[in-house]
């Protein structure tokens, strides 16, 4: 059963009407004709709705409870996945899943946020909000990947790093910082895929990469629209305005050079067809991974450094600075 979001209500009404007609008198030619007309109308409505989504509507798609997550992608994209647990220091954080798997004949290290499926699992996984031990587990696995020359693929989908007492006591900030620092010079190719919600530093801690790919309706932001609205507007209900102002959609981030490629989603979002989504993702991932593997690692590291070094919008009045991003 498909979940409809608030803004999808008109679609639901029409879909329900078609359903009802199909169940009532499907053999009558007049009914059949009506169903055909309504189905065409529904298709047009869907097309119109999904091609003009607001940033806030896309935020809701990015957070959709049925949106595929790393556990789903691992099943659809990889073979022989072995999950590895724990940071060897404090514990195992279920908000981050990691391990090794085969992808098109090679072994890769797979790491990502997992929000969970169903209430119990979601609670166990803290709704995808990691503690420091989650980031330290991720780093431990990346170092393993480096040791055994396996590329790293990360799946990003988190509201953010967990803001709690234990997280602060155990060094949430240090854990994130250490990942940024280590990923910048990790001597294997890294591909990061923002699949759902790219929530600030908690997302970036898995997101320093040679290629950053982003699903069409995913979001990636310095702060949640709710948090931004609460601080700048003093009113969390202004989240839709904040979502637009923060320019957190895939097209905007592609334009800013923060994301390297946007991966199109099935009509209505990735949750509507997990298999089609995974197939599209596999195709893009495969191309990028092969291109990265063909390069000497030192070139890759130099490019990785340069890519981040150039990310800025600054003005220097006396010298034109070609290294800086144009404002456009």
């Amino acid at each position, binding site marked *: 059963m498909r979940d409809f979001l608030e803004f999808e209500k008109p679609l639901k009404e029409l879909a329900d009407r078609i359903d009802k007609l199909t169940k009532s008198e499907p053999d009558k030619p007049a009914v059949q004709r009506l169903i055909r007309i309504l189905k065409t109308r529904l298709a047009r409505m869907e097309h119109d709705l999904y091609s003009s989504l607001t940033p806030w509507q896309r935020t809701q798609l990015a957070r959709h409870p049925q949106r595929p997550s790393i556990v789903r992608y691992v099943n659809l994209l990889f073979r022989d996945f072995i999950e590895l647990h724990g940071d060897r220091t404090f514990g195992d954080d279920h908000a981050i899943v990691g391990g090794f798997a085969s992808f098109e004949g090679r072994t890769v290290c797979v790491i990502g946020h997992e929000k969970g499926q169903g209430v119990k699992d979601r609670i166990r996984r803290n709704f995808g909000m990691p503690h420091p031990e989650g980031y330290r587990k991720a780093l431990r696995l990346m170092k393993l990947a480096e040791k055994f020359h396996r590329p790293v693929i990360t799946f990003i989908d988190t509201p953010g*790093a*967990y*803001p*709690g*007492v234990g*997280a*602060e*006591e*155990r*060094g*949430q*900030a*240090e854990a*994130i*910082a*250490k990942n*940024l*620092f*280590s990923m*910048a*010079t990790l001597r294997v190719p890294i591909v990061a895929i923002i699949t759902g919600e790219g929530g*600030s*530093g908690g997302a*970036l*801690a898995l*997101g*320093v990469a040679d290629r950053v790919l982003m699903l069409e309706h995913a979001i*990636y*932001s*310095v*702060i949640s629209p709710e*948090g*931004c609205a609460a*601080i*700048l*507007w003093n009113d969390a209900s202004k989240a839709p305005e*904040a979502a637009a*102002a*923060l*320019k*957190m959609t895939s097209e905007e*981030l592609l334009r*800013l050079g*923060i994301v390297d490629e946007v991966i199109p989603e099935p009509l209505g979002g990735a949750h509507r067809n997990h298999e089609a989504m995974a197939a599209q993702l596999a195709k893009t991932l495969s191309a990028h991974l092969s291109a990265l593997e063909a390069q000497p690692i030192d070139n890759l590291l130099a490019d*990785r*450094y340069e890519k*981040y*070094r150039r*990310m*800025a*919008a*600054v*003005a*220097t*009045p*006396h010298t034109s600075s070609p290294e*800086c*991003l144009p*404002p456009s």
Partner: protein
Amino acid sequence: MGWFTKATSSDTEKGKLNIVEGMWRKCPHCRAIIYRKEIERNEQVCPKCEYHFPLSVPERLAKLVDEGSFEEWDAEVSPMDPLGFVDSQPYRHRLQSAQEATGQKDALVIGKGRIQDIPLTLGIFDFRFMGGSMGSVVGEKICRAIDRALEGHLPFLLVTTSGGARMQEGTLSLMQMAKTAASLAQLDRARLPFLSLLADPTFGGVTASVAMLGDVILAEPRALIGFAGPRVIEQTIKQRLPDGFQRAEFLLERGMIDAIVHRRHLRATVGTILRHLTVGR
């Protein structure tokens, strides 16, 4: 502004308060009301509880580097408005008023100087400029300071006081965390020391990138340091936070920082650490 322009109606209404605020200062930590001159004589430190009041960049430099040794770099590097960001007011207006208030283009001053005769590169945050938030200019200038440290084989000292990444530059601000961490990794490979001094307050994206990456991490007494702000945590866990939570002393106890240094001893301590890490290698 001349003294004669100051007599506005709001001033006469608040006249009494102004006198109090002018001569006396309330310590935000122990809430004691203290004679302003006494705080100034005490290196801007509360004589009751040792809380270290925020310093302006010139005040910080005067207490930290050898007299006359500081030379600023890239003061003209200015912020842009890459998102065309508007909340209750446009980002451009916020920048303009912060620039007018501070005389600086953005929230970080970088340059070179000497501490106890040891040459080094420095970066100093200014909390008065939009809460010391890190956008493109702050990130860029940290990286430029590191570039110069690499060129000149110099140590790098960063003094942080910041609310975190700057919302008004969106995901570009987030990327400054990755960018500065990548530059620090270069410094690390060159075996040049990076000292991080955390002043009150240091939060969010600044803590979760440059601030916590120091080879040696120092903090000022009572400084609030963390990833998530205390209000956000209280709202999330729906409990009151324990006393002293996220203070420098709390971080020291949990093994997150190397030492807490009183302002009076800062120059000598930094000098000693730099000598230990650089001399005779």
